[in-house]
């Protein structure tokens, strides 16, 4: 039995330790916001927070998350930070097919929490592990920049 915190709730599972965190989240907990784009740690669509650090959940066997604090996109939807990102992505036009977007939002939130006023290069580096095939990234970069401006002061508090 593995116990961990998922979106603020303590949960447990008796799934085998080798099961990928991605599958556990999606299949057992029915949280569909975490997407699978590659299954090999190359696209970032499956990004979640593990103890506040953004990670690819397709690479994490659940055996390694006992006691950890896991947050998925569903766990941050109610936050002020998400609202700012939501609005910024809309205004900047950062969303096309949407498949990369939950992962991008997680990466954006992680970046801004660490660095509330990133430069363009820092933004590009911050999302370089997240593949987007539709937008060519520029409007996502704009969205994050906008979120940094609009959310001045909110990124640090956790």
């Amino acid at each position, binding site marked *: 039995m593995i116990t961990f915190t998922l979106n603020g709730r303590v949960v447990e599972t008796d799934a085998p330790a080798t099961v990928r965190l991605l599958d556990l989240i*999606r299949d057992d907990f029915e949280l*569909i*916001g*975490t*997407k*699978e*784009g*590659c*299954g*090999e740690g*190359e*696209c970032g*669509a499956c990004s979640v927070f593990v103890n506040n650090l953004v990670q690819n959940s397709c690479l994490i066997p659940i055996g390694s998350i006992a006691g950890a604090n896991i947050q998925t*996109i*569903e766990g941050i*939807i109610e936050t002020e930070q998400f609202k700012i*990102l*939501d609005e910024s*992505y*809309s205004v900047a*036009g950062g*969303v*096309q*097919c*949407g*498949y*990369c*977007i*939950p992962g991008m*939002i997680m990466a954006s939130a992680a970046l801004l929490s660490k660095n509330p006023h990133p430069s363009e290069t820092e*933004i*590009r*580096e911050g*999302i*370089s*592990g*997240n*593949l*987007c*095939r*539709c*937008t*060519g*990234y*520029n*409007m*996502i*970069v704009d969205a994050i920049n906008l979120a940094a401006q609009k959310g001045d002061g909110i990124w640090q508090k956790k």
Partner: protein
Amino acid sequence: MKLNDISTSVPKKDHKGKVSGQLPYISDVKVENMVYGVLYRSPIAYGKISTIQLPNLPAGYEVVGSEQIPGPNYVKIIKEDQPIFASEWVNYIGEPILMLVGKELNTLYRLLNEVKIEFEEHQAIYTLEDAIYRKSESGVTMASYEFGESLEIISAIEHGAHQIIEEEYDTGYQEHVYLEPQGMLALYKDDEIIVQGSMQCLYYIKNALLSALACGEDEVRVIQSATGGGFGGKEEYPSMMACHVAVAARAVKKSVMLVYDRSEDMVVTTKRHPAKINYRTSLDKDGNILSMCVDLFLDAGANEGLSSVVLQRALLNSAGVYKIPHFHAKGFVLKTNTVPNGAFRGFGAPQSFAGIESHIGHLSKQAKIDPLEYKRKYLVKQGDPTITKGNFRDPVLMEEMIEDLLYSSDYKKKKEDFQRFNQQNQRYKKGMGTSLFLHGCGFTGSGERDHIKATVKLVKTKNDHVSLKISNSDMGQGILTTLCKIVAKELDISYEQVFYPDPDTKEVPDSGPTVASRTTMIVGKLLERAARKLKTQWLSGVEQEVEEHYIHREMIPWNEKTFTGDAYPAYSWGVNFVEVEVDTLTGNVRLEKVYANYEVGKVIDERIMKGQIDGGLAQGLAYGYLEKMTSKQGKIQQKSISDYGPPTSLDVVPIDSKVFDNPYTDGPYGAKGAGELTLIGGAPAVQSAIENALQTSFQQIPITPEVIINSLWTKEGEEG
């Protein structure tokens, strides 16, 4: 919200669901009694199946193959050459032979490993070169077309010419890498199979299912679910997956889900056709073009699929945006025993534009004129004939668009600066390149009139909400928003009152596939007309319905046999300028600046258009220097995203873009197509920039670091 100017951006209809991740894509769907399918695929490129040995299947696990297909065993596209499940011959590595279905994916994969199939192997054709060499053998040439100036006249011209330049140009595969892998679900009911999934063309799938299941109209139904990118990759390929899940659902009487993982998707799904293009151009003593012959070969892979139509578009663009005297072209679709190639944003045009822009650039060197200057001498103008004796009847704004970029990029000064920089720097070299291009909007020739015959419907409810009933897919390009805007504006009601439910063939007429840059221009125009009709009949508080059908504007009639007439009703146009820095030690290319001007009639939503520009250009640029896919002995070598190398956020730079207004009468609010156009100029511009930086010529894309290093070595060798 009332819309004043149609171009002003509005919040996208699907924004909330996508940003929160709560909009379900097909792999997010689970239904009762659902089983998964996995495919056993041919491990050999060409041969005959001799024996099949199946493992003992546990209860609840079944095998589905060609015997379970109620109808004929092919995927209905154009030709009947693509089996749903190969039953006798296999023609490429990865061709589906049978499907195992059952509850647990892990068990299915284990069982898949235990399937034993023996083959009698035959000599395969692995490469396009080989196919060209063998093109007169039976079955190798799948389609061919030839048109233009007579060869006798050309040979007479060549006779008197000062010089004849021959070049051979190669373009590689391009893989879509839509971020959502292909997925399809068949919901089983006693009297109906509902196929739901990631797709661009609902009625292509429906027609394929009607044939495969040999059933009646009301026994199958196709519903598009949220589609995580398509780029053409979800044009014809999903028809095969739909046949797989539907046949399986019928056979096992359960709902069947088939979702590819990334490596499967990369290895077995369609890609952009690799091409070889030969140019033979005669010049006078000043380097002016006297005549040009183009021979174009497309690698179809193992099935014809849509390749003949791709070849048509490739040929129609073989002279680029130029008026070339005495032009002749011919093209071939050739079979190889490799994964079938298919639709990809641009549909044959990116290969042709890469080739012709490269060739014209090289000719300018013969004439000792700046490439852009040289290109402008041949630029088509309004009223000029097309290479198929059609007509460019609408205003052409290319000169204005070029002038604008010359100014904003400071082209002349930049080029001088770069030259100075390059003289002073050993390792890094800077260069500037340009591309000029167009895209014919809609289906080629009379396709809209004869094959598609689009119909759209608008349905109004008692509370005056209006729904679009059309079969087109939003795959990220934004038509949920743009098409609703057109209807709202025309009806003069608020944007929020207009809805675009997930297309479902039970509810919507066939408004055609979501391809060929036709959706805004053709479907949008029909919706505009339907809205206008509804407006005149509008009765508040009453349910109402209107329908509109495609009307063909007769121009110079298209003749597919002679390849003459107006190939397209209208053209969208573009100009790209690209600045690069090349590291001559590593061969790495870094984009420094990208400028892009486009003319698409009228922009329906500025923000969405910018999204198309940025995304399309990123793909187009990467096609020229980053993305490389190869096949060896019939096997795709790049099985993962990083092996293949699509651009990350670090590869792209901000794009300085502008869109010129030039309203087109037969488009809604004057709009023409835009989705494919944005990709086309990327590769040729990046090639000419690299050539400018290194003062050399390339005859291929992608120009990878390896290609650059090789060329530098060769150059060094030559210079001694």
